[in-house]
């Protein structure tokens, strides 16, 4: 199939909101391509029901637990999250009748707290300076001391990458005959692992590139390097490159997405766009595909869309905010 652009009727007919997850648009970023023969495409995961790629993951985690008979309505679900997975789980748990408790760093934007409360989730906060690592440690401790919780544990559950192997990557391959490179953000590793496996099965030469956040120094507040955390689902052997992106560069590219492509995306989308552009510059031709994890709505209060870079540096946002 050629990488032509065609319009399809948007939507479809679904039994409920959970069934409508996925089938997100793949949009070309023409202005950001450094070479005419290299086309950059972004899968806009903001089109999911709660506005992020984590709807795919949360549905897979819950349906996997249901299929194994591990949960039934009324079972309390516990999960560590930097926000998006919690919000997606909250919607699905509300729909399916599971009480939800999430553990989340206390320095995330207010919007994430509001969305979780809106769907009826209970929130336990972990120290913001420990980032998601602190939320993971606290949730593991809570689950260890209270066996009444069911923890899907997105960081160690193969249902997470499988959501992409069976969903995101299949949708990409339906639209593009060949993928020269795939760029994914590294958080739990689910997006990268699931897409990498499916895309490499289709073409072993597809380059898999991870973009990961370089946390501001004030968010690196771990007690020792031994408190570092690598999600068990990550297999580094599937990655061809792994490149970090500073909060500053991620914000620069988030602003470029608005100015040059009209795309209002979250800050991690800016980060993957920066790396997609860099990878594209090294290729002679072909399709570079990336996944924009969410839209910008949940980050409005951080000021990244309205303040200048200088203002964001001066008020400490770039050093202290947690966008992933």
């Amino acid at each position, binding site marked *: 199939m050629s990488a032509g652009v065609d319009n399809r009727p948007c939507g479809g007919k679904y039994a409920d909101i959970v069934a409508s997850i996925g089938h997100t648009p793949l949009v070309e970023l023409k202005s950001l391509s450094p070479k005419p023969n290299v086309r950059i495409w972004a899968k806009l995961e903001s089109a999911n029901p709660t506005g992020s790629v*984590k709807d795919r993951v949360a549905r897979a985690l819950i349906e996997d637990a249901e299929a194994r008979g591990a949960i039934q309505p009324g079972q309390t679900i516990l999960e*560590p*999250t*930097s926000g*998006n*997975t919690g919000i997606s789980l909250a919607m699905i748990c509300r729909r399916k009748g599971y009480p939800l408790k999430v553990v989340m760093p206390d320095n995330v934007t207010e919007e994430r707290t509001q969305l979780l409360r809106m769907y009826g989730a209970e929130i336990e906060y972990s120290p913001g300076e420990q*980032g*998601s*690592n602190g939320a*993971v440690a606290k949730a593991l401790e809570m689950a260890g001391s209270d066996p009444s919780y069911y923890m899907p544990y*997105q*960081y160690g559950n193969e249902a997470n990458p499988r959501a992409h192997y069976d969903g995101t990557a299949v949708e990409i391959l339906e639209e593009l005959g060949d993928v020269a490179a795939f760029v994914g*953000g*590294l*958080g*739990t590793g*689910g997006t990268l692992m699931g897409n990498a496996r499916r895309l490499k099965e289709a073409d072993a030469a597809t380059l898999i590139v*991870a973009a*990961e*956040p*370089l*946390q501001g*120094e004030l968010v*690196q*507040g*771990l*007690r*020792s*390097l*031994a*408190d*570092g*955390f*690598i*999600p068990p689902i990550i297999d*580094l052997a599937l*990655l*061809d*490159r*792994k*490149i*970090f*992106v500073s909060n500053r560069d991620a914000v620069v590219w988030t602003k470029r997405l608005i100015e040059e492509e009209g795309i209002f995306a979250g800050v*991690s989308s800016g980060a993957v766009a920066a790396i997609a552009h860099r990878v594209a510059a090294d290729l002679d031709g072909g399709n570079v595909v990336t996944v924009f994890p969410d839209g910008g709505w949940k980050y409005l209060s951080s000021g990244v869309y309205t303040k200048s870079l200088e203002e964001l540096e001066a008020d400490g946002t770039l050093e202290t905010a947690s966008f*992933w």
Partner: protein
Amino acid sequence: MPTAKIPPVLRASTGGEKEVDVDGETVGDALRSLASQHPDTERQLFGENGELNRYVNVYKNDEDVRVLEGLDTPLAGTDTLMILPAMAGG
């Protein structure tokens, strides 16, 4: 001479220094140079068999050396080594 950038969590072991000049033509040599200048960093950077500690990510400029050639990744004098704790998202 390559420069190693020290994360906040390691600075107690480098006398508060944020950047240390290191010697070596590979990432491994450069990290061992750091450990010889600041011995308290050795146990944090390396495992018992001399491999890179599992929870430490080391970047040559901005690329993770584990996805390059690990401790054998070549270094030029103008390169920067960034040492960071492995952090999750999600």
